């Protein structure tokens, strides 16, 4: 057992940490600053990163190899393993600035659109709505059937995060066999429609994707059950890693605030109620950190890792939510203010808990396995 980072792993981590501190956290102040003195009534509008800043950051991220992490280098990616990606996403999770490396699954390396995706001319959305309940493929209801020269795909209504994307990756079930296929779909394909785009409570949007007998070529079938499962596990690891970053940021800022904020004659840091909150959070952070790293390491080793990745996501997302909740509570009235990052983390983490597996359903699945097999 050697839990030290390798030289390469350390380099990756430090590059990401440096980028996040220098390029992202330094811009938080401007991003969070309230623009008008007096607000219109009602809920504040969704925040967005200035498109120019986004392009600038994208360029710089590419320069230091923090882009298209999953893709091999020959198509412009960084060719990182799962562990390296976790180390990177963990750093990006530490900022409220909505910017992170584009996620382009490795199995798209040979797709005709891969260069456009890497260069940012096209964007990709995972249309995995039906997977969010359990984090598995069992609720997938999108249907496909083979046709001459390709497939026809139909779905009534899929909640689509990132609804402005140009390409959609989605799992579907073959009529008759019920076999899962993983498809890449163009927004422009006849039969595809995206409607009802609205804001989410997190600073992102959702739309409704409908597929009416959409015809795709054979080469748009990118994989089967296992490949779709890998997308889920990768997304779970990405979310878990982001959650770790959120937890670290919230814990660090809370410690800092507790040291300096004085009430009733003593700093908050001397109150057990505050100490205990932070102690419990730190335990949680430790366990989530090691579960996530272990899952990623297993992935890189070619070992079974889906179940651990699911567990890591479940626990880490919950931890991040509690971390943000704690940070809000410790910061008092400022905690819910939009000029501070915590309420944003709180909303984001709440959504993360509902993506790629809700807690109770994930627990139920692993519980059923435990009951059947009598082992952990």
């Amino acid at each position: 057992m050697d839990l030290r980072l390798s030289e390469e792993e350390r380099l990756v981590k430090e590059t990401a940490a440096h980028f996040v501190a220098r390029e992202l956290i330094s811009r938080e102040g401007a991003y969070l600053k309230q623009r008008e003195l007096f607000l219109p009534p009602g809920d504040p509008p969704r925040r967005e990163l200035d498109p120019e800043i986004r392009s600038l950051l994208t360029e710089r991220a590419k320069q230091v190899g923090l882009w298209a992490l999953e893709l091999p280098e020959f198509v412009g990616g960084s060719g990182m393993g799962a562990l390296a990606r976790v180390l990177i996403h963990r750093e990006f999770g530490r900022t409220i600035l909505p910017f992170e490396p584009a996620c382009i699954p490795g199995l798209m390396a040979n797709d005709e659109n891969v260069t456009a995706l890497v260069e940012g001319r096209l964007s990709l959305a995972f249309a995995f709505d039906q997977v969010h309940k359990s984090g598995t493929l069992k609720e997938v209801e999108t249907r496909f059937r083979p046709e001459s020269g390709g497939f026809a795909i139909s779905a009534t209504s899929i909640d689509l995060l990132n609804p402005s994307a140009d390409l959609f990756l989605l799992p579907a079930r073959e009529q008759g066999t019920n076999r899962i296929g993983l498809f890449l779909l163009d927004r422009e394909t006849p039969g595809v429609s995206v409607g009802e785009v609205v804001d989410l409570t997190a600073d992102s949007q959702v739309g409704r994707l409908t597929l009416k007998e959409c015809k795709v070529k054979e080469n748009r079938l990118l994989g089967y059950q296992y490949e779709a499962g890998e997308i889920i596990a990768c997304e779970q690891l990405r979310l878990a890693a982001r959650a770790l970053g959120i937890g670290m940021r919230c814990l660090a800022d809370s410690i800092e605030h507790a040291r300096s904020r004085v009430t009733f004659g003593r700093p908050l840091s001397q109150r057990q109620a505050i100490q205990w909150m932070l102690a419990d959070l730190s335990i949680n952070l430790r366990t989530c950190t090691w579960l996530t790293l272990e899952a990623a390491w297993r992935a890189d080793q070619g070992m079974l890792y889906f179940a651990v990745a699911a567990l890591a996501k479940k626990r880490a997302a919950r931890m991040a939510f509690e971390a943000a909740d704690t940070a809000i509570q410790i910061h008092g009235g400022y905690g819910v203010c939009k000029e501070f990052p915590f309420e944003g983390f709180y909303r984001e983490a709440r959504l993360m808990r509902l993506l790629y597996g809700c807690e109770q359903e994930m627990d139920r699945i692993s519980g059923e396995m435990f009951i059947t097999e009598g082992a952990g």
Partner: protein
Amino acid sequence: MDFHLSEQEENLRQTVQEFVHDELVPLEREFENAPDIFEGTRWKTRARLSSDPDVKHYIEIMEALEKKADAKGLWYLDVPKEYGGMQVSNVAMIAVTEELEKSSIPFEFGNHVSNILYNCKGEQIERFLWPCVRGEKTSAFGLSEPASGADPSMLQTVAAPDGDDFIINGTKMFPTFADVADFVQLFARLPGTKGREGVTCFLIETGTPGYRVVRSIATMAGTEPCELVFEDCRVHRSQVLGEVGKGWDLNQAWLGARRFQVGIRAHGAAQRMLRSVAELLRADPVEAQRFASQVGRFAGELAALRTLTYFGSWKADQKMDVRSEAANVKLFATELLHHVIDFALEVAGPSAMRKTHAMARAFRHARSNRIIEGPSEIQRHIIQRALFREGITFLELP
């Protein structure tokens, strides 16, 4: 021991129940996508700022409801008789709010007056109190500061006596509605005083020279609290509410009275969340089985919150010391609501995170309840202090 409402209270409750059934429930569908600004009784002051025609439409509906409520004798319920009100008991006000909260329409009976304004004397009555009773003016509550909340010793705004005047300097954070209020109930301390000592409450009109509402502040709850600055703001001693140096007691009284209402509102909001969950589950028997025990657990906790709230209000009606009861209710209610909303989102899934979804709204609004008007930590502090002072005498039945 008798848990029945009195006949008078029961009649009032029934009137409200009918009002909710006849007037509010039919509007629920229409309010599903209403703008997020009709909470509480001070919505009008803010809604007026909007140029949105949609908002105008809802203002009309709300104003029509006010007239109907007034016609049924449901206005001025908690206003003292000497000011033309009905002066109903705390218990009755809990029953009223409980009924109102059964509907999702954010409608309240008015006019609620900040309870400490009943300490107005002399010309203050005509200048501040009556306009509030009549609903012509609204007030903001200026206590907390950039570095102080529940701790009086950190309060730094100073009111320096100068002849018959006081000169006020300082900054206040987070008074809600201050940007649209007609005056502020401002807490400041006399120079050189410490702790509660010397804290004094002033009534200061918006527009008074030296008093500026600097900005409103965006929050997750969409409540836009304000930042107020006082720079050599001169006010006459006739604007002191109550006695000079006795302001902290007023603050405590203000908080105490509100906490039972906070409790029953959280009860209502949580109950509605749970009903929404039940509605989702009725459509899916498998899911219903999976979530049933959690629904049942929360239903039981809500019953517990309800009985706790009534008991505390009853004690308040008996003029007993209810500081600990109020803290019990505030803490239990706001934490429970938080958990119920969290559960509702788990059942409903990511689609309920749409910004205008009732659950997502409740999610955003509920978070600040565990902080404002005394965070959970302060409530626990009040409770433990009473425990170590009085032991378990609170369980000696009255």
